């Protein structure tokens, strides 16, 4: 019995000393192999009396099991060690930079543009866009701004070397307002022959606009967004509600003041300039001109093909550059059109 315990102890010690699978197999052979110690003891079993045979046999079996458990455990240990060593050899410097292509980005004006579409889209405004080389009629006359009217000098116009069907030179639209007329006329046309009443006109028209003006604070090309809501009862108070809400969503702040100041545009009446004032931040306390707006002039409503006695509503036009500059704290307009990637990539 003493021998058996001794054998188990030595086997465990030799297994533990085996540092790789081959020496472990050698050690195993020493105890469990054909000429191993335990095998030798088993061979002696036949010479023992039946009584002794049974109890000794049991003892040997127990010892064999113990040795096998030790062997198995050592095998697993060695496998684990081997795996660990492989894994540690495979370790990466996880701080190395990622590979492959990176990602570009949108222009800040496009970000603003998209955001405005989302904000107005959330209350059901449609989005429209149309020609930038425009006729005099859509850009001016339809908007109640006849030829020679002094209000035309408010917007210095680029003309091109083509004429419209009436012989007037075509021009680059000076504002997005022509889209009011184009969209509204399409809308009215669409519902003209239907029995149901004409549904409200709710549209924004963002896009490029042009004026002969080029200095630090004016770009000859810039962007506006036009808004138009016409129904049977859309009032100036509604304009205030919508626009103030828009600014709060756009700047994600209730901490701003908006004021509507009487002004003049040929295509709205009453007309307002909308000024914005932040209650905090670097522009705190200054009134910043943001938009022109007002109730659509009855003549313009007639030009839509609607009866101003029945249909009223508001329109507004805002500069996307201005909104973008205020939103991101950009103070030089020219950065938008230089195409300088060092600037633009910051908006990726």
């Amino acid at each position: 019995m003493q021998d058996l315990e001794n054998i188990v102890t030595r086997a465990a010690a030799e297994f533990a000393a085996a540092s790789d699978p081959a020496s472990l197999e050698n050690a195993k052979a020493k105890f469990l192999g054909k000429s191993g110690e335990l095998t030798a003891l088993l061979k002696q079993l036949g010479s023992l009396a039946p009584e002794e045979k049974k109890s000794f046999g049991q003892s040997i079996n127990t010892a064999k099991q113990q040795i096998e458990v030790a062997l198995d455990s050592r095998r697993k240990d060695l496998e684990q060690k081997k795996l660990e060593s492989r894994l540690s050899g495979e370790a990466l410097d996880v701080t190395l930079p990622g590979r492959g292509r990176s990602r570009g980005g949108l222009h800040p004006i496009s970000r603003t543009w998209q955001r405005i579409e989302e904000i107005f889209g959330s209350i059901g405004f449609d989005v429209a866009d149309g020609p930038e080389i425009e006729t005099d009629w859509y850009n001016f006359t339809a908007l109640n701004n006849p030829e020679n009217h002094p209000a035309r000098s408010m917007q210095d116009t680029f003309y091109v070397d083509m004429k419209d069907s009436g012989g007037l030179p075509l021009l680059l639209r000076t504002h997005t307002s022509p889209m009011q007329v184009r969209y509204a006329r399409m809308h009215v046309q669409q519902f003209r022959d239907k029995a149901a009443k004409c549904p409200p006109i709710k549209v924004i028209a963002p896009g490029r606009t042009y004026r002969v003006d080029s200095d630090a604070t004016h770009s000859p090309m810039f962007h506006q967004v036009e808004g138009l809501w016409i129904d049977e009862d859309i009032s100036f108070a509604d304009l205030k509600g919508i626009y103030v809400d828009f600014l709060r969503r756009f700047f994600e702040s209730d901490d701003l003041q908006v004021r509507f100041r009487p002004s003049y545009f040929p295509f709205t009446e009453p007309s307002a300039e909308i000024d914005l004032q932040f209650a905090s931040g670097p522009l705190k306390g200054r009134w910043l001109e943001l938009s022109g707006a007002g109730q659509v002039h009855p003549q313009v409503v007639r030009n839509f093909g609607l009866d101003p006695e029945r249909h009223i509503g508001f329109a507004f036009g805002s500069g996307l550059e201005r909104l973008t500059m205020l939103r991101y704290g950009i103070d030089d307009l020219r950065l938008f059109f230089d195409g300088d990637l060092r600037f633009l990539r910051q908006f990726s």
Partner: protein
Amino acid sequence: MNVPENWLRDFVEIKISTEKLAHLLTMSGLEVESCAPIAPLFSGVVVGEILAVERHPNADKLTVCTVDTGRQKLKVVCGAPNVRAGMKAPLATVGTVLGKLEIRKSNLRGVDSEGMLCSARELGLSEDHSGLLELDAKPGQDVYKALKLDERVLTFKLTPNRADCLSVLGIAREVSALTGEKLKAPRIKSIPAKNKSVHPVKITDAEGCGRFAGRVIRGVNAAAPTPAWMRERLERAGQRSISALVDVTNYVMLEMGRPLHVYDQDKLRGAIDVRWGRKGEEVLLLNGQTVGVDAAVLCITDDSGPIGLAGIMGGESTKAETTTRNLFLESAFFFPDAIAGRARRYNFSSDASHRFERGVDFENNVPGIERATQLILEICGGEPGPSVDLVKRLPKRKPVRMRVARARKILGIPVEMKEVESVFRRLGFSYKKAKDNVTVNPPSFRFDLEIEEDLIEEVARVHGFDSIPAHPPRAAAKMHARPEARRSLHEVRERVAACDYQETINFAFVEPAWEADLAGEANPVRLLNPIASQASVMRTTLFGSLVANLRYNHARKLPRIRVFEVGRVYLRDAAAADGPLSVAGLRQPIRVAGAAFGPALDEQWGSAARAVDFFDVKADLEAICAPRRLRFEAAAHPALHPGRSARVLVDGSPAGWLGELHPRWQQKYELPQPATLFEMEAETLVDAPLPLPTQPSRFPPVVRDIALLVDAGVPAQAFLDAVQAEKPPIVRGVGMFDLYQGQSLPAGKKSLAFRVVMQDTERTLTDAEADSARDALVELWGRRFGATLRA
């Protein structure tokens, strides 16, 4: 327009601070841009009387003056050339701070000086530094007060509808309406004639000139100086003093909004006639410009022809000068339509044209004459003849009715009749009230009250926009979504950006050379009035702008540049008609274009550096356009390398271009490496058809690879097209996966490798079936293109 505060106070009392007044006016629609005092604030400068002037013992250009400050006599060293005993001038006493300069007791070349005698510039009043500012005031008086330098000037930025506010009186009317203070309208006295001199006037074209009042004044001294008070007011209002007669007309214009003109009567030849010009006639204007007129230009004429442009500017030949003895005053009414745009046509504008094209009060012609007569007599003397008022046709002032209910509906506030009446009363309108509406007779000075909305606007602005609440409207909750099969341009932008392109926005007008080079366009739409010749034509391709972006950023040492733009191009098209969203003669489609330059990837560890090429950008384009399948066919484009350029087709129709920038342009536009460009019609990119999925087969696919040897000139696409036309039914897909061109192949040959995937939906394919399908393809390609299996 600039309005000095004290002038304004002549016509209305102001009990609130100037800042408050400015705010009030701004918030009622007369925007006050600034209300700054005349001069920067200073104190300690007093009127000094120079009692004696002695030469400085040690300096030729300096004098030593004895100056009486009213309280004491001081010695002051002075360098002004105009200093003389007896004159009074500003003396900055010791301790005064003028800008950055503090006046101290000092010793100037051995003589003590106890202050500084000042020029206008030293006080910050003007740029005049020619000598001491001469004063006419009591010694010892504070100069800031004596010169009324604390007066503020209100600078207005007026909208074109409010011509009635282009005068001090007009602003006063508005102040009175807003504050409720009574308007102190000027009392204009009729000045009786001293002789019977009249100058004959006729109006041939009354649709241009409705009224012409005039008066002769004989025996004036036109050389008399303009009195200081008038000069001061004019200057503060921003009008330079010129001569007494001109100053008087300007004064009356600024005060009453009544433009006048003075003729030297002795230079007039026969009767004045107001008529349209005739082609071929010319007139030399007061600004030295000679202009030709025609039937669209209203002229003041006499027997010699045109002597002035009506309502715009007088002529040189009949102008009043300081030698003028007998003058003729004109106070006319010209219809805005007859004046508007004319001055602009000649590229200038004048105070008169600015007013007449917006509308001038047609009832103040005679009061204007009387006021001017009074001032001329006071300053220049003379004997007036009778004032003559020729009236032909005046604007009709139709009564305008405003329904209170309509005002409520438009403004969205519960306006009451009482408030409406109060507003109209304060504005000085004459009106008739009925049960639920008010009818206003617009005054002669208002040209912007023609329809009901005009009156609603008056109510709103006097009531105050601030007191209209902001409440969003209630609207039917109607769902709203973009059709799934159409992407927005923003989604397209996101897709391009996802392929590592940065968006730029460039001007739509470009250099003509870009168009010629990169679009082969010799006749793009041209601007008639470009800001610069490099921005004078409308682009027909976005390539020019993108190449400019590459160039700009390359010059700033960026090694890898990838840009894109979404924008319109402008194409002449005689067939294009006017439509809801189109203008005849033009197509203005939106395009999406990109450019890639430099390494395919940012320099990085573990990837060999490689320049971006055609196929990189092709893959980008395919990713951007997915799920639409693109086809590419070799075709030439003026911007692109002739052997590396492809027309892009979608559903068989041309939809854009892809290619390498032509080496000629690469050199001309100073790019050291090739750039790859694409340009697509946005319309094809927003179109994203809905998926039409089929059930995947439950049986395993069989794959066969085929390597072919073919003529180098046969495009890969041809093999795929041939398969599409006649492939065995079990062939699911064929794709090209390898290309080999090299020494080991016979000359003029290339090797293409295709992978063929075969599958049946009903059963598992046998090898024999797969091999036979593969053989069929090899046979097909051999028959069509002479391809052989590569050994």
